[in-house]
Every structure is written in structure tokens, then in C-alpha cells.
């Protein structure tokens, strides 16, 4: 990948394609295992972020890199930034009213993003790396950033922009590099001079269709994957194996939480696995915390078995048989305790269960361990188990305790292929025995394998529903970008 002076270069790819990792390598946060970074034609090796800054690379990371308990001014002093170089940028972003003595934790996220950006600019860099800078901004703030980038380009400086918003790419980017599974697979350029340095496919920027960008993010692997699915024991095209009944187990109407989740409605039937697909940061985390009782919605209703429920804590949701397997295993596990202690926690949610243990505690634990074939060789501390086995423990907890509706947040992220397959099979088995399952996954190939229907979420809303058996990665990713799926 080459970034020229005077260009805004888009870096695109699906979740987990390696965009943020690449940015961190370029910013000197992570060392590169192999390969060389050239700046102005000279090879440079970065030991730490200071090295990158010294050669004129300045970065705005995906999450605010400010210390919450210090004021804005103190944060600037920490990073050795001259206030005089910083404040003009605040004016540019129409934030001249910002109180530099305000605590960072008291400022809204979008302001912090602008402070982050202003701080990066105050270093007067040659190359600006922006990781999802527009995701948290309001529309007019994003406009200011675009205006900045346009001017930036004219000054002959360079910028790399990571975004999920393809319209932005078409509007302000000169070229686009597409990453997939950590490789750059395509380069889109305005004048189709074939850039053959890495033998990647090339295209043209301005008449590039957004759908072509999506196709490039998926690449040739789509067909490969679909072939693999065909030979899989869990073939997707077996309507007979699907167990959905007509009985609605769980439904929500108009669920809203601030600007993050907006007017979400759906019905989940017994025996059904309903898929949910979204790009990062489209409100899916918040939606799951609403559905599991961890947060209360600002508006909307939740129904279990047709009756409206108001939950103030996960305790209430679990009492109604609605249970969550969190995406972050740190939220599910008791890392220093044995497998058994991890599995039995929900058995004691009520005070009357506190004195004594259920007579069949051991038996239940044994059953769950056998059913999930959890490897218990390192059972004395769950943190020593492999990621896949940890995930099994997180699932097993609810096999021990029992449930009616399962909310599964990206259960197969970062686990091995074998465990993935076991997980799919288990979910289908649970559905067949009458459970209702909502499955958010970042692995689009899972959808036709496991789900009955799939909902697509974009910018806090459900934008589309597809039949999972007919959904392709390309149709899902297109819809997830908020685009119309061609008929």
C-alpha cells in the first residue's frame, strides 16, 4: 500500500479485516512482524509511537486516546502539544467555546473525537491516520472534517481514512485500498493505471459503484465459502431441519435507547434462530444490553410469552428465562475460579437458593461438561482454558440453569473451527428442543448455516430482513452498509 502526497486514501474492509491493526502498526503502537514502512522513500522502523510522530505520522485512533480524569489542557500538556497550535483547529471545528479546563470525562464523545483530531493536527503532521473518525460525529461535524481533508490534500499532505460509510469514500477519497483477512486485496484508483505492485485487482474510483467496493471486501472467497458450506454436515438448504414454530417467545416493539438504538421491533419464535448482522458500532451492543435487562430502554416495550415486561436488572430477565451470552468473555467468566463454580452461578440467583446446594449440582455440571465436551484438564482456573473452552463454559452456564430465550452475542469470535462447528450444532439442537435464539455474529458465513431469518442493523435501526438460507455474504454486507440490495 502506498499513500501519496496530496491524497486522501480510504482503507476499507469488513469487521476483523485488519484495518485497525494496520493503523496501529503505522502509528508505531504494534511492531510489524515482517515488512517495511517507507516514509518519503526511506525505510523506517518504529519502536514506539514517538518514532512515528517524529517522521510526521499522526494518528487518531478508533477510541479516544485521552485520559478521562484530566482536563483537556492537561491532556495536551501530557502529549507535549502547544496550545497555540491546537486552538486554531478548535476554531476550525467550530468548537471555540470549548472550555480547556473541562474534565475529559464530562465531554461528549463527538467533542472528544474533535479534540483528538485537533491534537493530531497540532503536531503538523505530513500523514494523518484517521480510524473511524466520522463514526461518532454529527453530520455537520463530519462536513467540517471533510472540508479539512480537502484542504489538507491541497496543501500536499496525505491522509488515510478508515470508514464504514462508503458514500464518504466516493465523496472525498482519491483512492481506496481494500483489506480482507489482513491482506490488501484491491486498490481502486481514479485513472485506471494498473498498480501492479502487489498483483491485486484494480478498479476506478469515481465511477466506482459502492456495490463493487462491497464485492471487493468479500472477494473471491465468497464462492469458496459457499462451496464449503455445501459439503458441511450442517447444510443450509434443508428447510425440513428447521424447527421454528408459530409461538412467539420474545418480542420487542419500538425499542429505543438514546441515539444508539432507534425504534427496533422484532418477534422471536420458539425453535427459531434469528440472526442479526451489523457492522461494528451500529448499536448492536446496546441492543443486547437492553434485551438482557442490563440497561433500561428510553422507549419501547419488551414482551416475553406475549406479556409485557419491565426489567431493572439482568436478574429480572433471567427470571423470565431470557439469558445472555456476552460477546466479551471477560463479562461472562470468573477467571480465577474452577469450571464448576463458573457453571453454577445462576443456580443461586434467588435468596431462597442461598442456603445449601441443589442435590443434583454435581450431576448438572457433569452433564453440561459432557454435552459441550469441555476440556477440563485445566479446570481449576477458567482463565487457563483455551478461548473455545472458555466460550463453552459461558454457554454451559445456561445449560445448567435452563432458559427459554437465548441472546448470543458473537459466540464464535476468536475461537477455533472445531469449536465453531460444535457451537453451531449446539445452537440448532437447542432450537430444535424449543428454545428461541437471537444470534448476533460478525461472521457472515455463519448466517445461512445456522439461522432461519436474519435482520440487518445499520445506524441503530433494523434496515432489512432476509431469509437466512438465501442470504449471501454480499447481500448481507451490502445491507449492513445501509445500501439497497439489488433484487
Amino acid at each position, binding site marked *: 500500500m502506498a499513500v501519496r502526497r496530496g491524497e486522501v486514501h480510504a482503507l476499507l474492509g469488513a469487521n476483523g479485516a485488519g484495518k485497525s491493526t494496520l493503523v496501529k502498526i503505522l502509528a508505531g503502537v504494534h511492531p510489524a512482524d515482517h515488512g517495511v514502512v517507507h516514509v518519503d522513500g526511506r525505510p523506517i522502523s518504529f519502536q514506539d509511537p514517538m518514532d512515528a510522530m517524529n517522521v510526521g505520522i499522526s494518528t487518531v485512533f478508533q477510541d479516544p486516546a485521552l485520559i478521562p480524569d484530566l482536563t483537556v489542557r492537561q491532556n495536551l500538556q501530557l502529549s507535549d502539544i502547544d496550545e497555540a497550535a491546537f486552538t486554531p483547529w478548535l476554531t476550525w471545528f467550530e468548537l471555540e467555546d470549548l472550555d480547556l479546563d473541562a474534565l475529559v470525562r464530562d465531554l461528549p464523545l463527538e467533542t472528544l473525537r474533535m479534540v483528538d483530531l485537533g491534537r493530531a493536527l497540532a503536531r503538523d503532521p505530513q500523514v494523518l491516520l484517521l480510524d473511524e473518525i466520522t463514526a461518532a460525529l454529527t453530520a455537520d461535524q463530519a462536513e467540517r472534517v471533510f472540508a479539512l481533508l480537502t484542504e489538507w490534500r491541497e496543501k500536499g499532505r496525505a491522509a488515510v481514512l478508515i470508514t464504514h460509510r462508503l458514500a464518504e469514500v466516493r465523496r472525498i477519497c482519491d483512492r481506496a485500498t481494500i483489506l480482507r483477512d489482513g491482506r490488501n486485496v484491491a486498490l481502486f484508483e481514479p485513472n485506471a493505471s494498473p498498480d501492479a505492485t502487489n498483483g491485486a485487482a484494480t478498479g476506478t474510483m469515481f465511477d466506482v459503484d459502492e456495490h463493487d467496493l462491497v464485492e471487493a471486501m468479500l472477494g473471491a472467497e465468497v464462492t469458496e465459502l459457499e462451496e464449503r458450506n455445501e459439503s458441511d454436515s450442517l447444510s443450509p438448504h434443508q428447510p425440513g431441519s428447521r424447527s421454528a414454530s408459530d409461538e412467539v417467545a420474545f418480542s420487542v416493539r419500538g425499542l429505543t435507547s438514546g441515539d444508539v438504538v432507534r425504534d427496533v421491533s422484532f418477534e422471536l419464535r420458539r425453535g427459531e434462530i434469528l440472526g442479526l448482522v451489523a457492522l461494528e458500532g451500529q448499536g448492536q451492543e446496546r441492543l443486547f444490553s437492553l434485551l438482557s435487562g442490563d440497561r433500561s430502554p428510553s422507549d419501547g416495550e419488551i414482551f416475553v410469552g406475549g406479556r409485557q415486561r419491565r426489567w431493572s436488572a439482568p436478574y429480572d430477565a433471567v427470571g423470565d428465562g431470557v439469558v445472555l451470552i456476552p460477546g466479551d468473555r*471477560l463479562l461472562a467468566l*470468573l477467571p480465577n*475460579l474452577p469450571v464448576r463454580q463458573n457453571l453454577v452461578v445462576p443456580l443461586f440467583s434467588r435468596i431462597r437458593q442461598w442456603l445449601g446446594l441443589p442435590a443434583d449440582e454435581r450431576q448438572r455440571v457433569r452433564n453440561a461438561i459432557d454435552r459441550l465436551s469441555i476440556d477440563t484438564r485445566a479446570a481449576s482456573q477458567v482463565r487457563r482454558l483455551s478461548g473455545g473452552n472458555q466460550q463453552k463454559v459461558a454457554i454451559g452456564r445456561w445449560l445448567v440453569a435452563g432458559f427459554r430465550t437465548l441472546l448470543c452475542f458473537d459466540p464464535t469470535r476468536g475461537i477455533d473451527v472445531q469449536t465453531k462447528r460444535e457451537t453451531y450444532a449446539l445452537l440448532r439442537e437447542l432450537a430444535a428442543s424449543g428454545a428461541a435464539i437471537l444470534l448476533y455474529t460478525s461472521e457472515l458465513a455463519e448466517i445461512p448455516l445456522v439461522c432461519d431469518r436474519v435482520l440487518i442493523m445499520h445506524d441503530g435501526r433494523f434496515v432489512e430482513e432476509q431469509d437466512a438460507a438465501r442470504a449471501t455474504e454480499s447481500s448481507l454486507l451490502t445491507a449492513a452498509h445501509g445500501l439497497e440490495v439489488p433484487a
Partner: protein
Amino acid sequence: MSQAPLPAQAAAEPAGLAARAAARVAEHPTLALTGILAILVLATGFVEPNYLSVSGARNTLLQAAPLGILAGAQTILMLTGGIDLSVTMIATGSAYVAANQSPEGAVIAILLGILVGLVVGSANGVGVAVFRVNPLIMTLAMSGILLGLFTAWAQTILQGSTQMGPFIKLLGGGSFLGNRVPYSVVVWALIAGGLIWLLRRTGWGRLLYAIGDNEVAVRLAGVRVWQVRITAYIVAGVLGSISGILLGGRTGAVDLQLANAFLLPSVAAAVIGGTSIFGGVGGYTGTILGALILSVLNSMLTFLNVGQAIQQVVYGGIVLALAWGYAGLTRRA
């Protein structure tokens, strides 16, 4: 970090026996503690031969019982990642109330004394679990409040008897079977049995460990964490009361400094016994040994007759060494 294993491995070759012994000890931490206890007892016997007798053992146990019960309160709370710095003030206050009510009879005196622990424990629990006050701050502030209240009440509503009734004196300081077995040790044994059962064989015990290890996960698993925390502080408060009443019974008369000196030892006994201040790890068996070790140490330093100042320094140093050595052992596993 990446270079650390090399020297360690090199050292393991000649010291293979020691390493194996260390690994064995790490597997059974109570063995190591029992060993330390035995060594301390023998060392004390060396200093003062009369110590190795029934009356020596009786005196050590008499000292250890109130400390062990206080340390039980700390153990429960430390398992959840909490602590109770007001536990000695609860003990003192309970003893004060029990002494004041002694003319009304032992049953009323003891029940009203325990009521102090119930009320203060509940207040601590609500502060920590509902209002999310840091346990150190909550219980430290509570300790100050209690000291103030009891100082004022000692002149007003609690004016009168500062002498414990005969039954409480017997319970705290008396012995049976020919003056061999102290009654307070029987109380301690009953409490110890109850605590070990609670921690090992009940859902509440499971939840204490779970909350100390990862509170968020326990909440998402459908547990009302605040309920567990409040009950833990209440149990700790009641244990503080019982300990204070026994201590008051032993000394016969109460004052507002009664249990002051026990605060740090109550935490130290739990830490020496292998309970982590950060929660999730530990148990009461270790705490019992920790309380015994501290009591023997105390006797030894008294017999050495080195003066209060040196005693304090040596005591603190040994506690530090034990806690540090123990932490090192268990981390290895």
C-alpha cells in the same frame, strides 16, 4: 518477563528438592501454615519451657478465639473484594452495650449486643452495595461515627454498668473439663464450622467467591449482587459483635479501647491464611491458622520481654514476611 524463566530453570536444577517441596506446599497451602505454626510453637517453647503445657495452649486459644472470629468477618468480606475497618468498633460497641445491659440478664445483654452488629453491618452493606461507596471509606467512616456515638452515649444513655455479667465473663474467659477447654473456643469452633459450611457448601458461599472474582459476570448471570453484599456485611457485623462480647467477657470490664488493637491482626490473619484482599481466593481454614499463628507470635514476643516498641516492629515484620511469602507460593501454582 520473557527472560524470567531462564534463571528460574537454572536454579531449579540444583535446588530440585526444594522446588518440589515448594510445589507440594503450593498445592496444599494449609500444610505450610501448619508447619509455620508448629515451628512458632516450638520456638516459643524454647524461649519459655512452661509454654508447652495445657495452660499455655489454653492461653493461646483464649487469645486466638476473638481474633479468629473477627478475622472470619474480614475473610467473608475480602472474598467479595471488600473489607470492614469498623469491625473492631462494632466489637467494642457490642461489648459496651452488653455490659450496660448485663443487669437485665445475660440473654438480653447478648442479644442487644448482637443487635449493634446487625444494625451497623446493614448500614455498611447498604453503603457499599447500594450507594457504591468504596468499602475502605465506608467502613472507616463508620468506625469514626461509632467511636463518636459511643463516646457520647457512654455519658448518657449507656451510663451505668461497664462490668460484664457473670455468664458473659464465664463465656469469654472461663474454661471447663478441669480448666482445660475455654468456653470461648467452643463458641469459636461452632462459628468456624458454620463459616466453613457457608463458604464451601452453600450457594451464598459460591456467590461470595464469584462476586470477588468478577462482579459484572455475576450480575449478568442473573444475580442481585447487592443482596449478596449486604448480607455479607451483616454476617460480618454479627461476627464482630460476638467477638466483642467474648473479648469483654474475658477482660471483665469494657472501655472504648477494648478491641482497638485487633483491627490490623484481623486483616493480617486472613491474609496470612491465604485470602486475597482483591477477592475470589481464600477460605476460613487458612484464616484459623493465621489467627493461631498471630496469637502464638504474640505470646513469644511477650515472653522475650523485649519491650513494647521492639515487639511491634518484630510483629509487623513477621506478618509482612508471612503474607509476602505466602503470596509468592500461591502465585507459583
